[in-house]
């Protein structure tokens, strides 16, 4: 089994879109960081968008990766947007209170509400399950 992450950088005008895919941990974060920073220093965009919709796993190394990119893009006078974080990583993002420090956006306005409803439904289901079991 391999645990991989990769990224696709796409720069259009002042904006760089980086799509991160796969598992983000301390091991894979090194390549992701080098890939993003290399592209940032070369293209110097005004805005870095990290699309994290295809991230399947992330531990606190991913929080470090995001905060690190925020500090690099700020040094370059730009801003960071984290786009469409997957359900797999939204819990750790919330836990870290990252919504307060980072601009998190959803491209599909519907999606966020859908995710919330789904989470609520699951919580309710597990509560009911617990009752049945007792």
């Amino acid at each position, binding site marked *: *089994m*391999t*645990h991989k992450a990769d990224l696709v950088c796409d720069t259009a005008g002042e904006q760089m879109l980086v799509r991160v895919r796969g*598992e983000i*941990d*301390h*091991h*894979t*974060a*090194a390549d992701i*960081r080098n890939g993003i920073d290399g592209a940032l220093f070369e293209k110097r965009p005004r805005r870095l968008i990290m699309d994290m919709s295809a991230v399947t*796993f*992330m*531990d*606190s*190394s991913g*929080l*470090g*990766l995001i*905060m*690190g990119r925020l500090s690099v893009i700020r040094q370059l006078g730009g801003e960071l947007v984290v786009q469409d974080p997957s359900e*797999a990583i939204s819990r*750790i993002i919330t*836990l*870290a209170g990252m919504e307060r420090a980072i601009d998190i956006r959803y491209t599909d306005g519907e999606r966020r509400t859908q995710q919330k409803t789904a989470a609520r439904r*699951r919580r309710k289901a*597990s509560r009911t*399950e*617990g009752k*049945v*079991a007792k």
Partner: protein
Amino acid sequence: MSPRAKGIFGGEVLNRIQIKLPAISVNEGMARSAVASFVSQLDPDVGELADIKCAVSEAVTNCIVHGYRASTGLIYITVTLLEGRAVKIEIRDRGCGIPDVRAARQPLFTTDADGERSGMGFTVMESFTDGVRVRSKVGVGTTVVLLKRLATRAPL
């Protein structure tokens, strides 16, 4: 942890696995998948498995990044499945140890800010499990014990 939870983690052992692997970063992924695949025999739900993977990843990464910061060595993992759907995961290194465990467990505390660490590892372990115990001695090593109680699933 509640006395009830303590009782459950002292229950009868159903199964156990021990894994010993070198403290190299490629093993972070290996370790969490191995643990997850062993725990799968209790048929946890996806959320529970994701929590366990994340907590294990934190503890194993700490052995590599901090424990063996200035050395190399092995990481010892023992996963025990107990009666009552309780899972106990012990992760141990023979690294440098932690001088002040209480301080280390605080959110945002890190001794490695240059390495883009977030200082959130222990907080993640605590939030994603039902109990975290840390034993550490400078110059000897660190043991982290993660306790997780799986929900009872309704029979089909």
